[in-house]
């Protein structure tokens, strides 16, 4: 078969699965729905592997599939750009999606919305593939919004829960704020380049660098890049547009793994890497990216420490890791960002799915304070979680080590404004990451068994559904459809870094897909010269600062949650102010709720009352009708119908006229 046909089949296979499971779910039944959906994603994965080999052999594609619309001399097209950056994303997306599809069979087995769920996650896979395979901004925007839509549908999957339907609306609207910037960036490119194609935009990058935005005088390219990055801040949950991601945990766990950890939230990272020919020419935009990323990496990590919900810990960890990727983009280490994106996709999906497995074992209780000692009952989940945590904190030879260390190195050698702050953030972040990861690990799998206590209250508003283990009940290991994906994800979480760091970061494997300007190349070349090979780097890892910081984090977690559990409460009391700030997530939510949501509602009803009802309808419409009535009444006063009044008026009139005439003649 023609390669182009294969390209087309990659997104269409999951789409077909989504349509079949969604529209004909009742007819094909549960098994039918998951078979057809899994088949679609499996086909996408296999085809991605084939395409990977083709690209590896040196072929790249950049072509239009069909012309969507023409207007104003601009061609709006749907087309594919298949290069090394694309295939990495295609493999990650289709593989993680496949794992999540299999896992879902077990996780959602009792849910009445089974078919609908499969339809949504297949639709998501389609949208995400369209996003990463695009060769133009139109399709990028389509994919961008489509993944947002599916995310909205899936966060609100349990549509009866007030918290879920609050969270999904919030997620959609916050993402729309990002998309607002994104759209302006795209519109600027179309206005100044006259095309939606990547190639045309990249070719015009240096011209744009010298231009200004007409009317406001801002430097054009910087404005474009910052606008595009605002889109990335929404999708990839960077401060201050991160607020939707923790709440998105209201959705079922499989989608937290797929959408809110491994794939969709990395769309922003991918997009900036894809746009590297533009960002490279704007130092200001890169600094902006760097500072936002560093802030997210550190300060979102802190929040992970105070969470008690197992999924929320992983969610904050995701925010923090997305910050690391953004930092890498800011220091022009695009390949390191993509590398971390890939390793993170594996171990974070693993951690989420393992958390889901724990949640199944705990009968949908997510509070870590009710867990403890689960390693005895859930051995596979335990081991795979440990693997995921070790990868996350950057233990040498694990995949996360290679990617995170490369980012830290790149920040270290960078001289872009803000890199000092970023270095501080990413280093402290290593300690924080290790601390919250192992806090979670110890609380869940080690220590005293705290489950099976008489029933406690739930604050999370899950309604009357029965949650948690009954008294005396024990957790149990999950079925094989759940544990198999865990094992399959654990393998790359360990080895993928070791295997791919050399080609992806140092041998220029990405080729033309990623562009780094000459002025930023210096530091990266230094790192490359110091690179000792994957094994050497791993060994060297034991004597670098990040390793000791991570170790300190693990040790601290062990002391506070295993060795002296009383201390953590004491510390919490001592630093109550800080703890309150962290518990309230730096008050972002409250601020948004009052200022933006409340403000918009107040403004709306204010305008409605004052502007519409009182001013326009009251003064304008009713006013003019009153005016007409009044004039009518006044005129009516003279129409009395009494002859003597008319006669009297006439006489007065004649008299007045006569007086005038007489006076005029005399004077």
């Amino acid at each position, binding site marked *: 078969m023609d390669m182009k046909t294969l390209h087309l089949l990659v997104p269409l296979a999951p789409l077909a699965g989504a349509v079949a499971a969604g529209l004909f779910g009742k007819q094909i039944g549960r098994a039918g729905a998951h078979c057809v959906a899994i088949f679609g994603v499996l086909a996408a994965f296999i085809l991605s592997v084939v395409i990977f080999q083709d690209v590896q052999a040196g072929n790249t594609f950049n072509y239009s599939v*069909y*012309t*969507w*619309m*023409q*207007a*104003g*001399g*601009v061609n709006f097209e749907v087309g594919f750009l298949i290069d090394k950056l694309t295939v990495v994303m295609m493999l990650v997306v289709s593989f993680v999606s496949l794992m999540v599809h299999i896992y879902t069979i077990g996780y959602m087995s009792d849910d009445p919305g089974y078919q609908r769920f499969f339809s949504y996650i297949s639709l998501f896979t389609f949208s995400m593939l369209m996003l990463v395979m695009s060769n133009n901004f139109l399709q990028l*925007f*389509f994919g961008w*919004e*489509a993944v947002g*839509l599916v995310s*909205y549908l899936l966060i*609100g999957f349990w*549509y*009866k829960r*007030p918290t879920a*339907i609050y969270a999904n*609306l919030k997620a*959609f*609207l916050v993402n*729309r*704020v990002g*998309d*607002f910037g994104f*759209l*302006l960036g*795209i*519109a*600027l490119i*179309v*206005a100044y380049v006259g095309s939606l194609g990547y190639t045309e935009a990249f070719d015009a990058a240096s011209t744009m660098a010298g231009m200004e*935005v*007409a*009317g*406001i005088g801002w430097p054009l390219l910087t404005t474009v890049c910052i606008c595009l990055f605002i889109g990335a801040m929404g999708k990839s949950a960077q401060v201050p547009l991160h607020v939707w991601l923790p709440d998105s945990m209201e959705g079922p766990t499989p989608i937290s793994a797929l959408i809110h950890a491994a794939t969709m939230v990395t769309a922003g990272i991918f997009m900036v890497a894809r746009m590297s020919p533009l960002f490279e020419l704007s130092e200001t935009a890169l600094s902006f990216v760097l500072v936002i990323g560093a802030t997210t990496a550190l300060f979102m990590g802190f929040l992970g420490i105070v969470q008690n919900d197992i999924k929320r810990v992983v969610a904050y960890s995701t925010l923090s890791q997305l910050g690391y990727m953004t930092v890498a983009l800011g220091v022009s280490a695009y390949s390191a960002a993509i590398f971390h994106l890939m390793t993170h996709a594996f171990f974070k999906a693993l951690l989420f799915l393992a958390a889901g497995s724990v949640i199944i074992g705990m009968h949908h209780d997510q509070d870590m304070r009710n867990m403890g000692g689960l390693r005895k009952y859930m051995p596979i989940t335990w081991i795979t979680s440990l693997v995921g945590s070790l990868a996350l904190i950057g233990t040498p030879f694990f995949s996360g080590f290679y990617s995170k260390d490369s980012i830290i190195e790149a920040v270290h050698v960078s001289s872009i404004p803000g890199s000092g702050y970023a270095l501080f953030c990413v280093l402290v972040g290593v300690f924080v990451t290790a601390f919250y990861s192992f806090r979670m690990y110890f609380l869940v799998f080690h220590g005293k068994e705290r489950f099976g206590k008489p029933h406690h209250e739930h604050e999370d508003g899950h*309604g009357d559904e029965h949650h948690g283990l009954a008294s005396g009940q024990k957790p149990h290991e999950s079925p094989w459809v759940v544990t198999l994906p865990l094992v399959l994800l654990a393998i790359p979480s360990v080895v993928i870094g070791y295997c791919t760091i050399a080609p992806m970061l140092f041998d220029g494997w990405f080729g033309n897909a990623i562009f780094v300007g000459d002025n930023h190349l210096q530091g990266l070349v230094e790192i490359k010269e110091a690179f000792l090979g994957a094994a050497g780097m791993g060994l060297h890892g034991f004597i670098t600062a990040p390793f000791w910081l991570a170790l300190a984090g693990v040790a601290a977690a062990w002391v506070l949650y295993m060795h002296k559990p009383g201390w953590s409460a004491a510390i919490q009391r001592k630093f109550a102010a800080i703890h309150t700030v962290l518990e309230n997530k730096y008050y972002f939510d409250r601020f948004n709720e009052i200022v933006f949501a409340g403000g*918009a*509602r107040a*403004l*709306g*009803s204010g*305008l*409605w009352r004052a*502007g*519409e009802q009182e001013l*326009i*309808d009251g003064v*304008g*419409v009713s006013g003019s009708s009153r005016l007409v009535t009044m004039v009518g009444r006044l005129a009516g006063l003279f129409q009395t119908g009494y002859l003597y009044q008319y006669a009297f008026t006439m006489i007065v009139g004649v008299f007045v006229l006569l007086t005038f005439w007489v006076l005029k003649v005399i004077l």
Partner: protein
Amino acid sequence: MTDIPLLSLAIWIPILGGVLVLATGSDANARMARVVALLTAIAGFAITIPLYACFDASTAAMQFSELRPWIEHFNINYHLGIDGISLWFLLLNSFITIIVVIAGWESIQNRVAQYMAAFLIMSGLMNGIFSALDGVLFYVFFEASLIPLYLIIGVWGGPNRVYAAFKFFLFTLAGSLLLLLALICLYNETGSFAILDWHQAGLPLGAQTLIFFAFLIAFGVKVPMWPIHTWLPDAHVEAPTGGSVVLAAIALKLGAYGFLRFALPIVPQACHEYTWLVLGLSLIAVIYIGFVALAQSDMKKLVAYSSVSHMGFVTLGFFLHNQLGIEGALIQMISHGFVSGAMFLCIGVLYDRMHSRQIADYGGVVNTMPKFAAFFMLFAMANSGLPATSGFVGEFTVILGAMQANFLVAFLAATTLILGAAYSLWMYKRVVFGEVANENVARLTDLNRREFFFLALLAACVLAMGLYPFPFTEVMHASVENLLQHVQQQTALTPPPL
């Protein structure tokens, strides 16, 4: 093919069909009235299909022209013709008529024949408006179309229907009188009532300005533009579902169409001079009305305000003076016809069951009406401009056009991305999601086959247009380019002294 007077047929088949339906008389023959109405509507739509099939996209000239003398003394003619700007509106109008007839099938039980006839006659008159090339003919159709809509609101409307019908009538009549003045003034200047002759009038700037403001108010009321829009929410709220659908899908387009057919080509220099004014009013419509929509507690009012906001995009696009802007605005008009029509139908489906339009009376509808919830979701998303739905195409293109004109205009226009999603989805959340809110919601039944059919039809249109808008813009290029060229040439000339 060209020998058949297609345009005349498109106008007179529905009107004569309407008269025929009237002849079936009392409600005893209601079934017959419905069937005849449906057949007429289908025939009316069928006759517009060859208009698209035989349309020559390469020329900006008027096609399918018909010219017969009417009142020779004043040089008034029965002159019809369409170009790439008007073509889609005939199809849209005739298509929506079918939907409206089906939608009123069961929910209208009183004076069925009169109801159906009103819609059919209006449909014919609307086709007349979109194809008239003679000023007087246009005016006659324009005015006549008020009457059926007035009756629909006044007879089959809600409790406050008389107020709403009067408000509607007075607003539009005030505008129409100004239009009449402008038309007579143009006749005095040029000695002709042919719209195409007026395009070449080249009036002095003073006269242009006066005529421009007459047009602005006459068509602005119809669009409706801020601040002369307040008749619309009242009319929508009181109108029966079918009335709202036609009002939103077709009637609002008349005003916008007027800007393209009259204002821009006839008084180009004045339009150029007052671009800032129209852009300002349009942006107010997009933003201010967006916030007002957020505050509504009545679903129909909310969608009505959302209509005003979306139509703001249309007038915005027209006055950007570039091709992206105008074509995007035209696309937005067609899409708005599908989407707002569908939104009102969805609300009608709920209203038929619950007899309430208050958002607060609903909650958890998805539990009892899952199919309905799926359709409603699609249309709410289209209303907030999601890609792959028709709502995206026009908004996106207009924003691109706005950026070509001015960063700030694009910035303000793009806020619709947030506002549109906020009011559409917040309403959706409160109505559809959640636990079953009360016993009435618990008793709801899902869509019947008839409702499913017309919503599916509109859903197909919304998706098709979102996935492949190419055919929609393809036929516009020549006409829009020609219009822009004409405006540009005219504004480049120094206007003759007063």
